[in-house]
């Protein structure tokens, strides 16, 4: 773990530097087709981009940690949870190998497969990302509790004794109105990119590769990251109009990552394979947009605990000033309400724990009452959900003034293995 911090940063995460874009591939693919499709997708994989095209800087799928955790949060998300439909351990391993290979290729801006394609067969890659650059695509794969044991407790793939002890279905929190069709899953794939088409392409191709082994259980599109995972990024805004993620753990905070995000070597003797990985908490949080929009700015700021324009804590200063929860204003009342979101989510109210949030805004059209079906798809990476998420969520669900405007409709927890080494696959440690 000693070098994990460096490995995690963008600079050292490793890029192949090939800079190949799918745009370049289009012309070559055309040529390939003219030659009877011989060598489609295989002849140009390592070719450099032509001069004049902006050098894409793809992330490497392989590395000590998986991509898509401390990688600077991209603008778009396609998150998918799958059910494994096979009971054959080898088929599952084969799938994870295939996914790892395809993920590695797509993150380089290549097609999902380097297979030669007959003109009489459907193309191996679905094609909608041809001509698009790598777009900072990252792919993160996780394992849900139901991968290890089914509902009746049966060991599905001979890995039950390696179940991480904190990997369970999240408890019901006050106010939860969970939709079973937006919760749980045996596997998850988080695809993030700067271009929605690239993220969707990734999930679509992984789902396609998985047909027969897995089936898509639910998925969520996200736009507009709601946190910064690097100090180089501006703090974005959530759909409540407030800056979100000001105090998030950043890739540069290597010591904090080690303490609060990466599972340590000695954390779980029964699940050593997870060391260097993390836990991914996913929560679909609907916002009552319409009632929020009818709320006075006074109450909005009180509920959040920050001012809307600058994101400064109501105790004063600028965006990155530390909130002063003890500061009292008129009448001896704290100027940051004790039930404000910033107060209750602050490490000082949660035994000092922190999490790396990677959420996205979402809008899934509107519901039958004409209300915008929108909110925040919350994703957090934590070292241990029992200490780093569940107590906080209980506290927020119970006391957070914002809860009046929120409804949690989806919930899932996954163990995210460490990154795979080149030539291997994500989760190899679990199945070895």
């Amino acid at each position, binding site marked *: 773990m000693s070098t994990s911090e460096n490995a995690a940063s963008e600079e050292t995460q490793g890029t192949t530097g090939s800079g190949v874009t799918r745009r370049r591939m289009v012309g070559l693919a055309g040529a390939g087709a003219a030659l009877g499709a011989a060598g489609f997708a295989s002849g140009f994989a390592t070719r450099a981009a032509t001069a004049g095209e902006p050098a894409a800087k793809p992330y490497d799928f392989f590395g000590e940690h998986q991509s898509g955790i401390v990688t600077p949060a991209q603008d778009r998300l396609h998150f998918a949870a799958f059910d494994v439909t096979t009971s054959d351990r080898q088929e599952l391993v084969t799938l994870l190998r295939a996914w790892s290979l395809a993920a590695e290729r797509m993150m380089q801006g290549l097609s999902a497969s380097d297979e030669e394609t007959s003109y009489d067969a459907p193309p191996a890659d679905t094609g909608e990302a041809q001509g698009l650059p790598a777009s900072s695509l990252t792919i993160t794969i996780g394992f849900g509790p139901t991968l290890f044991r089914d509902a009746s407790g049966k060991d599905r793939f001979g890995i039950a004794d390696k179940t991480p002890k904190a990997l369970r279905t999240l408890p019901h929190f006050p106010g939860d109105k969970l939709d079973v069709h937006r919760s749980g899953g045996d596997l998850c794939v988080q695809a993030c990119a700067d271009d929605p088409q690239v993220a969707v392409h990734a999930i679509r191709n992984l789902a396609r590769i998985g047909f027969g082994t897995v089936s898509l259980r639910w998925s969520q599109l996200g736009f507009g990251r709601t946190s910064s995972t690097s100090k180089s990024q501006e703090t974005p805004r959530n759909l409540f109009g407030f800056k979100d993620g000001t105090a998030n753990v950043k890739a540069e905070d290597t010591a904090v990552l080690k303490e609060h995000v990466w599972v340590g070597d000695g954390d779980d003797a029964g699940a050593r394979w997870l060391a260097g990985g993390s836990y991914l908490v996913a929560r679909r949080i609907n916002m009552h947009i319409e009632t929020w929009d009818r709320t006075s700015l*006074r109450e909005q700021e009180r509920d959040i605990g920050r001012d809307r324009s600058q994101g400064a804590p109501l105790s004063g200063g600028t965006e990155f000033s530390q909130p002063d929860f003890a500061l009292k204003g008129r009448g001896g009342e704290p*100027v940051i309400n004790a039930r404000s979101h910033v107060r209750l989510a602050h490490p000082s109210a949660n035994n000092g724990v922190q999490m790396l949030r990677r959420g996205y805004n979402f809008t899934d059209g509107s519901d039958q009452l004409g209300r915008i079906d929108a909110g925040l798809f919350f994703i957090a990476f934590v070292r241990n959900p029992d200490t780093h998420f569940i107590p906080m969520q209980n506290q927020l669900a119970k006391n957070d003034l914002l809860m009046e405007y929120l409804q949690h409709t989806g919930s899932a927890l996954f163990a995210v293995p460490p990154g795979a080494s080149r030539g291997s696959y994500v989760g190899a440690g679990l199945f070895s």
Partner: protein
Amino acid sequence: MNRRLNLLTVPAVLALAVSGCTSNSPSAGGDLTVTSTADKCAVSASSAPSGTLVFKVTNKGNEITEFYLLAQDGLRIVGEVENITPNLTRDLVVQAPAGQYFTSCKPGMVGSGIRSAFTVTDSGKKVEASGDDKKLVATATTLYAGYVKDQTDQLLTKTNQFAALYKAGKFDQARALYAPARLHWERIETVAESFGDLDPSMDAREADLEPGQVWTGWHKIEKDLWPPKTGYKPLTAAERTKLADKLVTDTKTLHTRTRTLTYTVDQIANGSKGLLDEVATGKVTGEEEAWSHTDLWDFQGNVDGARVGFDNLRPILSKKDPALETSIATKFTALQKVLDKHKVGDGFKLYTQLSKGEIKELSDAVNALSEPLSKLTAAVLK
């Protein structure tokens, strides 16, 4: 519960007479800027024409500051903005007729403030001074307090009857009284919910429970009276008695506490808005009465409560913003008309008897009213 408005925890401006609107949104040109530091209170101009004045107050000091516009006697507060923490900017919006005034910053919130003379010249507009509505405010708040007391009286009476029927195993009669009794709760819901201890024990829904929380109150009884078809174990007579007695005790506590409650106009206005929010998030979706489906009774109760709050504030609003008054009144009438379509005798159709189109129509009417109603607080404080 957690999702609901806590009327009494909203940091209320003290009373209309000393209120100022604060806003971060930029307003039209001509604003005055104020920079408050430890020893200075720099106002960008020492005079302004009569009418609406906007002071944008920035705290460049290290302590919390406040800003006041004081009348010529240096005592009467025309407008104030409090809790301006370091580096933040807050707006004070006041109506000021021509005359002599003082501006004053109070860094550290102590002392008599750093004062300067300020002149409001005659712009020719007729301006009603902020803070001249004391009588109207007193009337509105007194009437509202009386209304809350009356509703809790009726709630207590009907809850007693309901609890007795339920305990006695007269379930049909208890079911018939459930929604009519709750109507009184729903009419004053934002007030009732302001008691953080009573609301969870009286009105919690099953999904809202915290880990380890014992479920009590109306909705637990509701489930027992309208049990799910499968997998439900009816409560024992002893459990029913305990549950019913607890509801009565809680209602008595609520009754006692509301005897002495007082209200400010912004609380009444926010309460009206909050009641409509309740309709929009819980009633029009059928989530409130998951077992009995008597959501439309609650819906009517919330609308009644919102309407009474609005009616009490109407004399103030008609002076400050007659267009808004008309808009809100019209939309209350329209909403009631839609609701009336579903009346059956003294009550309503069940939520499950409504078509999707009918629910959408109700929802649209709620939205149409909620939008102008959300402006009520700022308007009566203007």
